[in-house]
């Protein structure tokens, strides 16, 4: 009985640390930047607005990581998606909806190819997605080396549709009540997050993903088709990645080669910080959401502070990732010891 309790603690512990870290950071922000309005509800919503794409991509990354794999091509795929959207709508005069459809198919193709190489040819996921990362980035450069900004009206109407919330408003200097708002991208992102959460938790496919990641051999002996499950996980990830890229594009309304550089790191960091184990088998998209929010909070800190260079975001994220990875590794070692003793 006691042993079971400890195991449960080990896995939820990391998530607990993450949520606590987010709350502490946020409260610290409110105290430090008191005069600058950090405490406004809108600042919290902005975290969601600027990271809508990342929320979806981190969810996809979490799925792949639960199977024990990883995908470092996401940043480049996002750049490719943005560039494709911009190029098709601006240079080819395509409508927004067919362009979106094509982009989603591109994401699926990436998922299928990478999933096939990983699941059926058993190549290390890292090598496959590293190649995918350079491939997508290079393809972006082939489409156009210059920045294309999107002026398509339908697209911009999606991007700029503000949805006001009926509560939590603040009164500005002129005495006008300002209600906080979100963009449709946030709602799409959160909807997808909930769907993925339910899928992972309550469907047969979701559970088999955990089974494969926990122990491939056992999953195989249980009668699960490990290869197809892995392939499906990568396809799903590719699809989510293209949706994430679309949401990201709604935010930036442009496509250029250097876009979303280091995004893979942010997605992986969000998942790891949210309690997903690098060894697979354990993970939760809600944790990843908090991982994304922590990253957003760090960014907000840096913008509010004003003098720090934007490189600090990447360095802090990397440091946080290192910290959480080491924490995971220590937990794993502690668990091993407990198992040995018992």
């Amino acid at each position, binding site marked *: 009985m006691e042993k079971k309790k400890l195991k449960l603690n080990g896995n939820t512990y990391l998530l607990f640390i993450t949520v606590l870290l987010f709350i502490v950071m946020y409260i610290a922000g409110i105290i430090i930047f008191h005069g600058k309005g950090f405490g406004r509800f809108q600042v919290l919503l902005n975290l969601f607005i600027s990271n809508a794409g990342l929320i979806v991509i981190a969810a996809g990354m979490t799925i792949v990581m639960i199977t024990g794999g*990883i995908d*470092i091509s996401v940043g480049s795929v996002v750049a490719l998606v943005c560039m494709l959207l911009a190029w098709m709508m601006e240079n080819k005069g395509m409508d927004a909806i067919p362009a979106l459809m094509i982009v989603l198919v591109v994401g699926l193709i990436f998922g299928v190819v990478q999933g096939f*190489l990983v699941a*059926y*040819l*058993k*190549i*290390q996921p*890292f*090598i*496959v997605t*590293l*190649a*995918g*990362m*350079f*491939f997508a*980035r*290079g*393809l972006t*450069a*082939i489409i156009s*080396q210059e920045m294309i900004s999107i002026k398509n009206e339908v697209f911009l109407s999606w991007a700029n549709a503000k949805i006001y919330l009926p509560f939590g408003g603040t009164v500005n200097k002129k005495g006008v009540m300002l209600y906080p708002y979100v963009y449709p991208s946030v709602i799409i992102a959160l909807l997808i997050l909930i769907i993925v959460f339910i899928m992972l938790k309550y469907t047969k496919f979701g559970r088999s993903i955990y089974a494969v990641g926990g122990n491939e051999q056992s999953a195989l002996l249980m009668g699960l088709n490990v290869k197809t499950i892995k392939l499906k996980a990568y396809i799903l990830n590719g699809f989510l990645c293209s949706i994430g890229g679309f949401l990201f594009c709604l935010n930036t309304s442009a496509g250029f*080669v250097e876009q979303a550089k*280091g995004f*893979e*790191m942010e997605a*992986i960091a969000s998942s790891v910080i949210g309690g997903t184990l*690098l060894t697979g088998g354990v993970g939760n998209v809600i944790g990843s959401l908090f991982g994304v929010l922590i990253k957003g909070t760090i960014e907000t800190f840096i913008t509010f502070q004003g003098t720090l*260079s934007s*490189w*600090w975001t*990447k*360095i802090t*994220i*990397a*440091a946080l*990732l*290192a910290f959480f*990875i*080491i924490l995971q*590794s220590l937990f*794993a070692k502690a668990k091993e010891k407990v198992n040995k003793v018992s």
Partner: protein
Amino acid sequence: MNKIKKITSYELFLPIMCFILVLLINVIKTPTFFEVSIKNGVFYGYIIDVINRASELVILAVGMTLVVASSGGTDISVGAVMSVAAALCCYILAGGQQTINAYQNPYVLGILLALVVGVVCGCFNGFLVAKMKIQPMVATLILFTAGRGIAQLITKGQITYIRVENYKLLGANIPGIPLPTTIFVVVIVVLITNIVLKKTALGLYIQSVGINAKASRLVGLKSSRIIFLTYVFCGLCAGIAGLMASSRIYSADANNIGLNMELDAILAVALGGNSLSGGKFTLLGSVIGAYTIQALTTTLYAMSVSADQLPVYKAIVVVIIVSLQSKEFKKIVRGLKDKKADGRKEEQVA
């Protein structure tokens, strides 16, 4: 038949074949490819250019080979470490200024500190991989993204120029010697590494750890220490490569030094006939692989492919090589062959 089989099973068969193939394409496209002329007492020519430009890659490939062999993973932070080393060296030499015409600090100090920072980065990676048992690519991913950020911070987001003649020597020619300096550095690095690996048991240890770390530990090898050392060495190699790259452009450009080098280094190792899952390795194969890639890059540039677009072709090559190496693929191919053979037998019986 047997002779052909013997040749194809030779471990350097794949790298040498690829190298010859790339050279052939070049000779057909530019007949003057092998011509070497002397201008101002210095050798000029395509082939010299390829050998010169490949220097950083060869050194990275040497470090990467050992990392791959010992841990079955790759160090993707090498490009970023290069830029950190270059940035630190220029920062020290420039004493924090942006452009200088005379060293503010001794040349040797800058070089030494750059190498030290490479070693430190290697230690960080090695610690995460060997001691904390984290997958190599995740561990090195940390420096892969943060490294350029750190380099930017060192140079304060600007390009530091070192306008001193002897800073350029490492990336150009020493007066009176017709060959680029980088070639000598490469020869020294490769020779020393090779001698150390062959004359001591270290090479054997690395292979045995790569094949089975647990068994090696039970035999009495300190597996984690050997893995750690290979990462440190890889960091040192990245430091040397960073210095060379910086000397070529006599500045520290944090954004562009070593850009996309990690893929090239991995590609060189794979092209060299080394398995990316660790174990047996040939240093010579990786070196040939590195020259092949540089020749390929030069060819692609000559075909007016831009630097941004290059990775597309390289990524395809990586995927093809790795697929060919994979056991599953070999199984499928063998399955097809068996089916064919079965079919033939049946025909004969009928």
